[in-house]
């Protein structure tokens, strides 16, 4: 290492105790995250097990709850902040989400068209014909 490359500032790598920057976790974060997760998990299970709403509405609502719970986990458990790792964590996350959305939406779109344009099958398998298997 050349002598002029040393960083000026409170942190010197030479002292051997250079602490790596780690996200600071607190009990409060974990407890809030846990309680929110319990609520956001219990409600979708309750909605599907007792079915107080129509199937379509329930589906939309539980998908919404899943998205919120994923954000809760990211913030309170994974300590995701816009500033973490100089912003690179969030950048890579946003990139991944874009790729995932394109891939999921694209696959479903293409395969839906493929299914719609298929020749009709002689018999359409339904879930009603399955009871004798069990």
């Amino acid at each position: 290492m050349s002598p002029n490359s040393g960083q000026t500032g409170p942190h010197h790598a030479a002292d051997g105790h250079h602490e790596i920057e780690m996200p600071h976790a607190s009990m409060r974060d974990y407890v809030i995250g846990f309680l929110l997760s319990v609520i956001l998990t219990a409600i979708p299970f309750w909605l599907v097990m007792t079915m107080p709403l129509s199937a379509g509405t329930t589906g939309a609502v539980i998908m919404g709850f899943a998205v919120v719970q994923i954000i809760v986990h990211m913030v309170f458990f994974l300590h995701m902040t816009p500033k973490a790792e100089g912003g690179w964590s969030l950048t890579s996350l946003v990139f991944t989400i874009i790729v995932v959305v394109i891939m999921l939406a694209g696959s479903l779109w293409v395969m839906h068209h493929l299914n719609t344009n298929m020749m009709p099958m002689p018999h359409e398998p339904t879930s009603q014909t399955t009871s004798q298997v069990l």
Partner: protein
Amino acid sequence: MTANAITADEPVAFYDLDEHAHPEGHSTMLGFWIYLMSDCLIFAILFACYAVLGGSYAAGPAPKDLFDLKLIALNTAMLLFSSITYGFAVLQMQQGRVKGVQLWLGVTGLFGLAFLGIELYEFHHLIEIGAGPQRSAFLSSFFTLVGTHGLHVTFGIIWLVTLMVQLSKHGLIAANKRRVMCLSMFWHFLDVVWIGVFTFVYLMGVLR
């Protein structure tokens, strides 16, 4: 580029040849996060497969006939408990208590094992009643998606045991702290994937 051309005598330096101070492991956390993002792509592909094939029962059983939501709720609870107990391990680490870290890592591992046990019981039951992965495209994609998640949890537990051995040998050195934080990300990430699994596969499957 005017800032580089200070004087005409000095050669213009296009490359920064001086080594900077890189503390060991300073980029491990970001690197591990990017690994998790690539893992996220694997799961996204498996979710896409399930979304496409999940309705192809081949005149076989449908999700409504197979899934026991009470069991899945129990499984979800196991993983959620393991998430907060891992959080307690991280908090103990911040206070420098190696015994506390070991204790909570052990509890996390037990919850992880309980999750795996319940999942294996479910898989065993499905295969026993003739709803194995070879029965229909729906079941193939179901076993691949949920099985890949279960495999991740298995490797997470192996890592966890390894980490407990490393902690007992070397204590809370910087490298071990880094490892605890990496496994923390891995473990919470698996819980995030499980949110997708129980919502999209199990709950939506029963609604279908």
